[in-house]
């Protein structure tokens, strides 16, 4: 993975920008330019709310090379409130508190570093929805 890859993905990973199908109105994430529902071209950007719930989850104890620093960490499939599933890490939660159906919201966090001289990659993670203070 190189710097151009993260640069290309910045709208998706920083702001959860996907697409909306101009024909059937489906919300699409990750963006794929072709509506999975009606197979029509779908280029119209759509920014997701970032709210959803845990659809499935696990904890990675034996991470791939480059991800050792934060292990063990929780990852999940999140069902976004607009419909699509998204794969992401969970944060601000102990892995044993995670359960299917847990309401979560997107936050921007550090995903990984590429050594002392390398880039730091930021992107979306999901945390349990915070209770409103006011």
């Amino acid at each position, binding site marked *: 993975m190189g710097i151009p890859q993260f640069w290309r993905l910045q709208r998706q990973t920083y702001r959860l920008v996907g697409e909306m199908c101009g024909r059937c109105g489906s919300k699409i994430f990750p963006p794929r330019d072709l509506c999975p529902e009606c197979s029509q071209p779908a280029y119209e950007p759509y920014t997701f709310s970032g709210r959803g719930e845990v659809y499935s989850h696990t904890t990675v104890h*034996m991470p791939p090379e480059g991800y050792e620093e934060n292990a063990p960490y929780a990852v999940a499939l999140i069902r976004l409130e607009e419909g699509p599933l998204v*794969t992401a890490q969970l944060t601000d939660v102990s892995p044993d508190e995670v359960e299917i159906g847990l309401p979560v919201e997107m936050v921007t966090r550090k995903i990984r570093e590429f050594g002392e001289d390398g880039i730091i990659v930021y992107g979306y993670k999901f945390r349990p929805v915070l209770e409103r203070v006011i």
Partner: protein
Amino acid sequence: MRDVSIIGIGQTPVSEHWDKSLRHLAADAVLAAVQDAGIGRVDALYVGNMLSGEIAGQEHLGPLIADFCGFRGVEAFKIEAACASGAAAVHVGYVAVAGGLADVVVVVGVEKMTDEAGAVVTGSLALAADGDYEVPHGLSLVAINALLMQRYMYEYGLRHEDFANFAIVAHQNAINNPNARFHSALTLERFSSAPTIAEPIGLMDASPIVDGAAAIVLCPTEQARGFTPSVRILASTVVTDCLSLHDRQSLLRLEAAEYSARKAYRQAGVELKDIDFFEYHDAFTIMAALSLEACGFAEPGKGTLLARDGEIALDGRIPVATMGGLKGRGHPVGATGVYQVVEATQQLRGHCGENQLPQPRLGMTQNIGGSGATVATHILEASE
């Protein structure tokens, strides 16, 4: 289209082969298969492999292995389809012979995984998943299977122990396979107390990281008469699905496995009930359950019942993993699909020793790439 038969098989033990390079491992299997067939000429060589570039630092396997085996000059190249690379290579060999472009084809699946440490292998295997939307979030292939298994257990109200018999049967069948990685029985206690890799997947749900190579020789059935006992390939199908779990229409239905099997039944002109045994893709116990359901051996959510009730044992309704499967024999990823076909051929020839089924006529193999994005199914028939 010509009918295609298998006239030779070869395999190396599945093990940690620190003393052998990838080319030596492949050559051992290829030359064993060529000797088994007793042929002197080869028209093409197809290599199933996933990780040679990542782990052995070697691509361009076609000419490397062809030349090393003494077939310099033949058509030869690598076929990559993640964990389904082996069966995808068998499919290419089948197409070449069926289409009349080649008469004698060797297919070899080879993988060397133990030269590198765990985290490197884990990272390399993750290349089977989506490099933009799964891998950058720290997912391993184990984690992806764990997401499937967690949801499956939630929807069908299952416990981890319900999956134990998939692994126990695999270990039991591997004991009598001299080429298997494991020769020890697995108990429920050991299954349950194994360390967790990614909840709910424990070490004993997962197939081991190993080295191995397996090969077959194919020719048109009309030319296979002199080669006994030959085995006919009645069906060879490859079907794909979305690469990543989050894009699937239905998470707990392996649609590619379903369509691949259905297409194979149609191609072979057989029905589910005609299949005598099933070499399935038990890379993880959840894959065993999903594969049985996709092929129609169990209703959705009921796959584990086949294991619980002993129906997948050698004397059960649908014997699986008859030589140990991925869990017991081992899962050298790009070689696995060819091992499955080699073992099915052994069964149909009646050469499985203690594990021999009583005169099986039809065997099915299913090789699954990634979390179900590529699925290759083969149906083989014993010669008269």
